[in-house]
């Protein structure tokens, strides 16, 4: 819940934000949000899954670069990648 307070302060200071979380309700209404399908404490995936970590980070940076309106990107339905 406290992430929203930090987002509001950063955005007010002129610093755009993107949030990568996995609990929908506390993140509603924030400018750029990515929801991942992993449980709490594993926002970027499983330990050692570098490809998935980088995939999610790239999505976050893409929102910072290109979002033109408040955006919630839901990655929870993504299939498990085959590696």
């Amino acid at each position, binding site marked *: *819940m*406290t*992430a*929203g*307070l*930090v*987002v*509001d*302060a*950063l*955005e*007010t*200071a*002129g*610093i*755009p*934000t*993107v*949030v*990568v*979380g996995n*609990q929908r309700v*506390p*993140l509603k*209404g924030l*400018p*750029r949000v990515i929801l991942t399908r*992993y*449980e*709490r*404490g*594993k*926002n*970027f*995936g*499983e*330990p*050692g899954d*570098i490809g998935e*970590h*980088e995939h*999610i*980070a*790239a999505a*976050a*940076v893409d929102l*910072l*670069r290109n*979002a*033109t*309106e*408040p955006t919630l990107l839901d990655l929870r339905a993504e299939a498990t990648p085959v590696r």
Partner: protein
Amino acid sequence: MERDRYLEQWAAWLPAALVWLAQDPPNYRDSEGTIPKPARPVLGIQRVDGPLRVALLSSSAAYDTATQPAYNEHCVIGDSSWRVFPYDLPDERIDFAHEHFDRAPARRDPELVLPRRALRATGVETTAHAISWSGYSMDWPGLLHQTIPQMVAQVKADNANAALLVPV
């Protein structure tokens, strides 16, 4: 000193919250569900012109075990302090003092909640520091008046023009 209406609302909420939090197990649903919310600013979407320089902030209560104290996991209303440490701090120096999530995976791989390498792998510039706070804090006046302004000042001092937040 001006009256702080939000502080008054929070102080009025606190006695009931302390009773809920003293239950076994603590009643987080009612205490967190009723905490007074400050008014939110009305903000449009902001764009960054030019290359990104991204600050990384995580509410995982990460800290540098060699130089910093752990967060207080035993206070009933949590810990509203924050930490800043070098972005490239070795993984083995990092621990998490936040008992509301299973820390074992993040201890094996801090990238799960502090994605320093993954963020840098996108090609953006990152700041010299990473920032953490504890996602479990009911001391919202402390967060709003002290902790968060200090974190924002650190982000600005690090010349970031954008921020990635990882709430836990």
